[in-house]
């Protein structure tokens, strides 16, 4: 089946098995191994990506569902050379330990901050409650997302 979609800003038209899991395509075909798989059954959130700006679990999506969509992975959000403010905040605030949940957390945070530029800690906690982390106890993740929100707000003010 031919599927047209946008991946990290790049328009793609590929011939694929429509029943293939999106996480497998991203990791094994597209080389985007920042998308992690922790359970394969939608329980852990490590494979979270944004589909048209909405956080989705790529282990529960099939290739056919990508038709006409815009897909963003953690690699598309920013890079070590040019990190997104959320990624920089995760690194700066100690929100990363083993780092396996981090890409999914970052994407969940990106969805949140696009909708709510000034979330309370409680709101942040709710937004990442579908993403399991076994290392941090979440405190520094909440710190990082809150700090990223403030940073993004300051950047917006500067532009005004």
């Amino acid at each position, binding site marked *: 089946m031919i599927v047209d979609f946008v991946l990290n800003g790049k328009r793609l038209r590929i011939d694929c098995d429509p029943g293939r899991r999106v996480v497998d395509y991203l*990791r*094994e075909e597209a080389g*985007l*191994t*920042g*998308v*992690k*798989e*922790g*359970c*394969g*059954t939608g*329980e*852990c959130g*490590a494979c979270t990506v944004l589909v048209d700006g909405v956080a989705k679990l790529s282990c529960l999506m099939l290739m056919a569902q990508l038709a006409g969509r815009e897909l963003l*992975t*953690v*690699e598309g*959000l*920013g*890079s*070590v050379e040019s*990190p997104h403010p959320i*990624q*920089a905040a*995760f*690194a*700066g605030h*100690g*929100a*990363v*330990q*083993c*780092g*396996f*949940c*981090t*890409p999914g957390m*970052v994407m969940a945070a990106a969805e949140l901050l696009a909708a709510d530029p000034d979330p309370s*800690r409680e709101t*942040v*906690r*709710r937004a*990442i*409650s*579908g*993403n*399991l*982390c*076994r*290392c*941090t*106890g*979440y*405190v*520094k*993740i*909440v710190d990082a997302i809150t700090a990223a929100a403030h940073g993004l707000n300051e950047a917006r003010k500067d532009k005004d």
Partner: protein
Amino acid sequence: MSFQRQAPPGTGQDRSLIGRDIPRADALAKACGSERFAIDLYPEGLLWAGAKRAGVPHARINSLRLDAALRVPGVIDILTRADVPGSNRQGIVHKDQPVLCGSKVRHGGDPVALVLAETRQALESALVLIEMDLTPLPGVFDAASALAKGAPLVHEENEGGNILLHAVIAAGEGKKVLRRCPVRVRGSFIVPMQEHAFLETQNGVARLRPDGTLDMTVSTQAPFRDRFEIASALGLDPGRIRIRAPYLGGGFGGKDGATVQCLLALAALKAGGRPVKMVWEREESILAGYKRHAARLHYELGAGRDGRLAALTCRIYYDTGAYAHLGGEIMELGMEHAGGPYRIPNTHIEGFCVYTNNPVAGAFRGFGVAQTSFAIERMVDALAAKLDMDPLQLRLQNALRPGDLNCSGVRLEDEFGFAGCLEAIAGHPHWTGRGQWTKAARPFTRRGVGLACAANAMGYGRGLPDAAVAKLELTGQGRFRVYNAVADMGQGNAATFCQIAAEELGQELRDVELVQPDTLLCHPSGSSSASRTTYTFGNALIKACAAMRDKLFARAALFLLKDELAGLALLPGRVRDTQTGREVALTRMAAMLPRDDRVCVSEFLMPVVADPPATGRAFRLGFPHRFFSYAAHLCGVEVDELTGKVTLLRSLTAVEGGQVVNPQCFEQQVQGASAQGAGYALFEDFKVDQGRILAKDLSTYLIPTALDLPDLEVIAVAGDEPTGPHGLKGIGEVGLHGPLPAIASAVQMAVGAHLGEGPITPERAYAAAKRPRGKGGRK
């Protein structure tokens, strides 16, 4: 947090890197998704390997029918016991765990066949089509039935029947003094298994190179030991096995010891030189992975009427499941901590580590100490209630202090600050204001505040040298490369090594680079475990840095035409003669020096207890320990009267672990341990019925989410360990032990009933609240 200190002399730095919040070197690449974990490797032309698991807890294997599975297109081969060269036995101390089971299976996760296939789909299809002809055997599913006369044997050849290890630690005259104690409390406690639930499941890739080297990249905590385990099990030369250990997506002990290693190596031997990948799916990870030991503990604690602890006797039973792993050593550490961080002069601590047909128990952060911490802390609470004493004051009165004997009869010669942890809690508003806070409970809820303490040993203990060898290179580009030889499973030791090297060498952090553990490039430095990683390797690294500094001064003298080395300083990117102001760039020196001359290798061996007590004779290695970190933990909970649901509203941990090298990393470790401890206390009900796991995935085995935990608060209590790198002790584990007993204590305060079994599920809390009052505390 910040602890400013002087930079080391001769580095020319005006500001020390030690004691500062330094963002971890690995953090940004992980946040951007560019760090490659073992699971992210998909070598060209790879084959997939997977194990057929028994699915029944105890059975005789009559035969396997492979023909249907072999007919699946894309299946290359299916291996069974007959295909395993070597001993077919894995195990760190006791080699009792088959790579592939041939005659019988001892737990549901035992592998009986190994499939090698072109695709994952072919692998999955073949695994389903393997038919096993098994004769079920009666099993044993808890320590009591395993010890019963005539019980079915898990390992028929084991001399002790189902007993892996029976041991006693005694100090003074525990039983005798206890009988004479005017005040005694008694209790029995039960804790379940706990699942590591690291997010990156067990996995690796392996390839047999044309020169005969088995080249493996594995998510492992012990790459150096893995070589010997694989070699022994498969009859190979350990010198021909190369293991690389990139950053792990979590470990917590569950990747210490063989997971995929031997199966993967076996598959690679049969893959005709093609790379092989093995990834355990989540359910397989839970089925076949190691667990924290389920335990039953029977305690009796005696004291004077003034609250002074006098005697402890206990009998503890650890269920090690089907195989030993480190069961005996884990129970040893639990027993060594059975008296908690208290001065109890007379003890008799007896332990049985028992085989059952349950999932295999092994290393898990805290290594046996979580279980005994629960028991002793509940006993101290019971004693405080009986004496009508303040539980914090009772603990402070009996707190171990430098120079005391601990419950194993080991004199604590080193400085430490456990009492400081208690004092930090005692002065905190969460403690002083607890009365008012508990009264502010919402309608239909009750609040309680509980306290618990813990010690956690650092290092392997006597009899197993705890050593590390650090290699440091001045690269051809004039930067410094640290060959990290202890896997970083997420705790941040690798980044701390960069920080230490930059500090010692007077360089910018960005000019220090890392090589992750690789048995070809690095030197054997032990496992990532036992709160030892940063202490042992960090010390070796400091010595390597000093050697490097001396070497660079000696070589710089040539460039700077100096007759003696006085007055030279190592500055970022250069060596400076402070007397003349002349400098030579490290890039220039690096270009002139042969590679062998740009490398320094130094080692460190952890000191041990000089004069061990004459007890614990059954322990072959790892007893006793010399260094400990300490913690005091406060929890504030709200219990829903209608449902029994316990919500953790406050968590405060005070930890003494020597000096703090990086406050951010320190908080990370304590918060992470508190969170796992809170999971152990409230949610993680590893239900097993007759050897079958009921909590088989992450929707039934619940680990805490962001909504289940409050902001976990951390206090670093001042300390200094003179033998540690920059005064540090390991603190990766000590924060785990407090939550279960502290939450049990808080719930008891809220509902007025004793809780002796974890986790404290809504059902247990509800039942406790409904029990008639006055019967709790002492059974």
